[in-house]
């Protein structure tokens, strides 16, 4: 089912990419999200392993500075969202609670005119690729609509990161983001079961197993859910001796 919110959100990202004459990337997700939520700025930080926080895209220098600050001092809503795997929604960074929680970061953010900050981990289960952060110059919670949109932008960011890590180009025409494969990564039980199985077969983290699964589906032009089903049914395996499948899967699809 193509639902309205996901479609609307993707359209806004595509528009920003087109204006830029580029393929959709995290930068466009941040820009589109900032516009949709009327935010002062939106940033995205990647995580490669637990605790790593690597800012990549911000809509303005202030956002980049604050992302860098979180990475440097290792505290802030974004760091917390990455560790807990849950969104951290801060209505007022100047509140005593916020200052106690983030003694270095919160005052620094307030100094730069940021009052509200909302951090959304991009991932599903054990698969986490980063965190999307919305900065506002006013206090108060996000509206339900903005919150829903933020979740949708975060999902898109995750899919784009998985695409780029898996060597799958997100060309507008065949981006996996708006196809069944993107949907499957977000919702399919079998895809995540298969990723769990592959992670044991290959001795790699689940996120890498998911990348391998997607890369192979992409390279062989089969639906991700079908491939996942075959893995769960043990019709195919990716193990070191797993028949025709080899470590060159990723490169093969790049």
């Amino acid at each position, binding site marked *: 089912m193509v639902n309205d919110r996901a479609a609307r959100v993707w359209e806004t990202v595509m528009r920003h990419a087109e204006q830029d004459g580029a393929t959709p990337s995290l930068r466009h997700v941040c820009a589109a999200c900032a516009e949709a939520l009327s935010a002062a700025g939106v940033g995205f930080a990647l995580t490669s392993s637990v605790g790593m926080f690597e800012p990549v895209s911000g809509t303005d220098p202030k956002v980049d500075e604050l992302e860098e600050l979180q990475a440097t001092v290792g505290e802030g809503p974004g760091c917390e969202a990455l560790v807990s795997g*849950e969104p951290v929604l801060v209505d007022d960074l100047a509140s005593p609670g916020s200052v106690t929680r983030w003694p270095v970061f919160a005052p620094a953010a307030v100094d730069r005119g940021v009052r509200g900050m909302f951090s959304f981990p991009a991932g599903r*289960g054990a698969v986490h690729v980063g965190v999307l952060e919305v900065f506002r110059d006013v206090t108060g*919670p996000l509206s339900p609509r903005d*919150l829903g949109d933020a979740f949708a932008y975060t999902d898109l960011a995750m899919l784009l990161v998985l695409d780029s890590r898996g060597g799958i180009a997100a060309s507008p025409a065949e981006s996996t983001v708006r196809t069944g494969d993107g*949907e499957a990564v977000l919702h399919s039980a079998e895809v995540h079961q298969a990723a*769990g199985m592959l992670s044991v077969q290959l001795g790699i983290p*689940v996120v890498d197993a998911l990348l391998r699964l997607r890369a192979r589906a992409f390279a062989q032009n089969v639906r991700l859910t079908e491939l996942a089903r075959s893995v*769960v049914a043990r019709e195919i395996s990716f193990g070191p001796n797993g028949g025709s499948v080899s470590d060159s899967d990723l490169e093969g699809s790049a």
Partner: protein
Amino acid sequence: MTASQRQVAHVFVELADTLVDDFDLLAFLHLLATRCKDTLEVDAVGVLLADHNGTLNTVAASSERARLLELFQLQNDEGPCLDCYRGAAPVHAADLAAERGRWPRFVAVAEAEGFASSHALPLRLRDDVIGALNIFGTRPGRLADELLAIGQALADIATIGILQERTARDRGLLARQLQAALDSRILIEQAKGVLSERLGSGVDEAFAVLRDYARSHNRRLREVARAVVDNDPGVTDIA
């Protein structure tokens, strides 16, 4: 009180007892699905929640049979759950054979799985519907009104459980709550895969191992799933 009334009362007491501080939402919904199946004397029950996109996702089921989970998920295209969610009202398909025109794909898969009837009851929160309780029977027939009333009460308790986990009074928090429940469910799917590969078992058996371990060690399903996926030495005794 008749024996069956006593049984129903027992189920509600059991569920209410589970809703203590710091309870395990996924284990609670799993228990609810299982008790719903037994109490209503039906053959399968699932709890589905809608995410921020309005996509229905299974968070708990009376059986982890893969084809059953697929049948729930299929209803993002067509089926009683989708109609129930969109229409914010119960949907009764007493005879699936008579609904082939309405839901061709759904009925085909349901029949292949041996089901002949299906009901969907809304998970209601004030004016919102946040998901659906999906019921399947292997024989055609509409559930008696008193059973449907019990089913709706169970659907309401499921909603209370979701809200209770971390008091989600406003809609913003509710969206977070739903997101967290769905994320936990995906983590469990990943852990099922990891465990089934280690055990050489099916994914449904892996779920049983996960659930029994969480129960006997008094830990949350989500926590155990996370430890399994992370290969945490603390749970190496699980398999």
